[in-house]
């Protein structure tokens, strides 16, 4: 069936992508000045200590053999141990930040996607009205603001200066079950929702407008169908494809690209973890995190494409 073949092909390409990414990241990390041994020793480094640590960590072997050692471990399911700190297994070190980021992305998606699509459709239907103008202007303004500025404004407004409704720091506490700490997540989720909302809603609006002008929609209206049915049953499924693609891109960005927001809320997510790993030149961590983020990217794009296919009958039955 066309769909399974497409998915299978895309997965194979995805694996190739991951491989290429792992090589590129490895090369890029080698190009940085310093290495994990120097990062561990910091200002206590002497040439002898650096040399000893480098040999203990295997950093004095040729680059290719370091990479091959790493990739062979990964293929047998072992992500290795962190070079620095307590040398804990990489899975242990990145497990919590991964979970934290996953939660944040999931909550943001659950909140932002329905709202963005809904607002986009509404703006399209009420095109050129006052409501549409306000929405369009608002989304442009939001798109222009960097996400950490949005975050700071929200903190000032809702947490520290104007109102004091929400906690300004989203540091999950050890030992406290996750569902009791949802209040801490409100501000980061709100910040990220406002950050992704402009793109998704504008895309939705643009494609909905285009679809609403097409012949079959005019036909449906002439047939006497209720406007709600015309919009939601006939127009939106065809208009949604670009928004789905846009959402996938935004979610992938949320997964690893929100270091500034994580810093602002002291939220221990995978973006900050990656930044820390790079600063410490901790190659096993850097490789593992990048692989995972690349895999997330590939899967999200794949899901977006599958949804697009499913939603469009022409694609689904393989006539296109």
């Amino acid at each position, binding site marked *: 069936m066309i769909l399974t073949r497409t998915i299978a092909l895309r997965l194979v390409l995805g694996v190739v992508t991951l491989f290429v990414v792992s090589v590129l990241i490895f090369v890029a990390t080698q190009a940085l*000045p*310093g290495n994990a041994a*120097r*990062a*561990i*020793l*910091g*200002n*206590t*480094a*002497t040439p002898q*200590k650096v040399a*000893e*640590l480098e040999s*203990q960590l295997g950093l004095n072997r040729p680059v290719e053999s370091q990479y091959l050692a790493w990739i062979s471990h990964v293929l047998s399911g072992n992500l290795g141990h*962190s070079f*620095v*700190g*307590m*040398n*804990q297994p990489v899975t242990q*070190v990145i497990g*919590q*930040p991964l979970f934290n980021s996953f939660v944040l992305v999931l909550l943001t998606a659950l909140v932002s996607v329905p709202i963005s699509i809904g607002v986009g459709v509404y703006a399209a239907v009420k095109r050129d009205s006052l409501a549409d103008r306000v929405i369009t202007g608002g989304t442009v303004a939001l798109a222009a603001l960097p996400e950490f500025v949005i975050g700071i404004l929200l*903190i000032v407004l809702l*947490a*520290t200066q104007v*109102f*004091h*409704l929400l*906690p*300004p*720091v989203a*540091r999950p*506490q*050890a*030992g406290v079950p996750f569902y009791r700490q949802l209040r*801490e997540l409100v501000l980061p989720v709100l910040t990220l929702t406002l950050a992704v909302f402009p793109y998704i809603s504008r895309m939705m609006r643009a494609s909905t407008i285009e679809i609403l002008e097409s012949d079959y929609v005019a036909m449906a209206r002439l047939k006497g169908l209720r406007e709600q049915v015309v919009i939601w049953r006939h127009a939106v499924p065809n208009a949604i494809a670009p928004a789905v693609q846009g959402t996938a891109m935004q979610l992938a960005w949320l997964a690893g690209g929100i270091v500034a927001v994580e*810093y*602002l*809320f*002291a939220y*221990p997510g995978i973006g*900050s*973890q990656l930044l*820390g*790993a790079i*600063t*410490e030149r*901790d190659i096993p*961590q850097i490789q593992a995190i990048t692989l995972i983020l690349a895999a997330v990217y590939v899967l999200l794009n794949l899901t977006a494409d599958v949804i697009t296919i499913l939603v469009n009958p022409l694609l689904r039955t393989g006539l296109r």
Partner: protein
Amino acid sequence: MSTTHDDGSGESFMREALNRGITRRDLLKGAAVLGSGVALAPLLSACGTSGGTGASSSPSTAASPTKGGNLRIGVIGGSTNDVVDFQVAMTQPDNLRGRQIFEGLMKYDHNYQLAPALAEEVTPDATGTVWTVKLRPDVTFHNGKPLTAEDVVWTFQEIFNPKFVNNAKGLFPTVDPKRIKALDKLTVQFTMTKPNGDFKNELAMENSTIKPVGYDKKHPVGTGPFKYGKFLPGNYSLFPANENYWGTGPYVDSVQTVDFADSTAMVNALLGGSIDAASDVPAALVAQIKQAGLKSVVSETGLFNYIFWNTAVKPLDDVRVRQALRLIMDRQQMVEEALSGYGRVGNDMWAFYDPAYPHNTPQRTQDIEQAKSLLKQAGHADLSLKLYTSPVSASAVPACTVFAQQAKQAGVTITTQQVDVSVYWGNKYLTWPNGPGWYSAKMYLVQSLLCEVWNEPHWHDKNWFSLISDAMATADDAKRTQIIQEAYAIDYGIGAWDIWSYANEVDACSQKVQGLVPTRSGIPYNNGYVNELWLA
């Protein structure tokens, strides 16, 4: 009297609700605000008691420690490179965690004076070549094993093991790992390679914290007040109390040490109640702490900030140029600008709390005329320099910037060049022509030892080095002090480290936290001895 955040919003909300007529939703909301107001009443009533000068907290109250609770402390810095082992410790989070788990043979008290720790007595023979350490009899490791002389021998031999890359080795220049003997279960004998009068200070440095024989770094075991537990480097650690601890406390059931990259986030966390105490609070945020009715403790510490001049690089090899640069510095202004007033001016000499520190030496102040004349003599009347700087501490870059400005008054052009910390301490470390730095409190000879190993200014003054080794070899305290003071005179006159300040350190905590006192080491929370703290 200042109000807490919740109280403020409750008031305005009430006014607004009354204006438009109260609805059911308002009633429910009002109940919530009222409820939280009642819960916060104890906090409100306690506020204002320790605002004031902030120079002390309330530990001298007769309240006796209450047991229980999880103490959550915040610390700036940290990364995935966090460790607990003091022998490889690098950052403030490492210092705190190390203190929770490990202990050394000697320590420094809150006045930065020597005090016994795991050792009851440390005595030299007449020449200072053979030192005898008598251990406390009542100490057990976290795994139940009693502390014996064998563990001390093992710890020191490990320090000298070339496979174990650590920072402790450099602190024991006279220890011979092959001549450390366990005389009996509680007595260790060190036979030094040369006479050493300063061994007690070396032992008081955290780096010789004692580990049990066969220590496994994956399951750290020490003698300290807390045991190794959950640890996510760069994130937080949660260590439970050691019920069999021989010393003070611990009073709390566990201590959670949380890393923060940013002071503002840490203070926000304290204000929001997700941590109980914050450390290294920047001056700008202290007002916010006081306004919220929280406690703050200011410690005058021995942590010093410096700028070094590499004597191997022209024209810094000329002592007159270095002296001129020292005279250009307006140290008071640098303390105001870079430390926001939270510090005292330095006098180009380290180890402020060493018994030998010459407090009578006149405080160096800015003298532009003398500086200009010195530069003219040296033939560098219109000196132009590049000053490298890096955010190795919060004050490093601002201090260099201020100094560069001050230099203009003497006709000296200083352009600052900022580099990233990882570059600063990267492979060009120890080759920079100049740069900022800091050390936490130390005694004179230990500090000199460290500066010998990490000799940023390539300082090779023969007189100074011979004085240092004479002092080290002198077992008699009074004589040693005299020799050290001669070395101090050289530092003050022609040295290459410009020590422009000693820092103050501010800890802040909620009203629940008791026992916090000022200390002089520069390590927060009672020099890291959080076993002295309790939750009321």
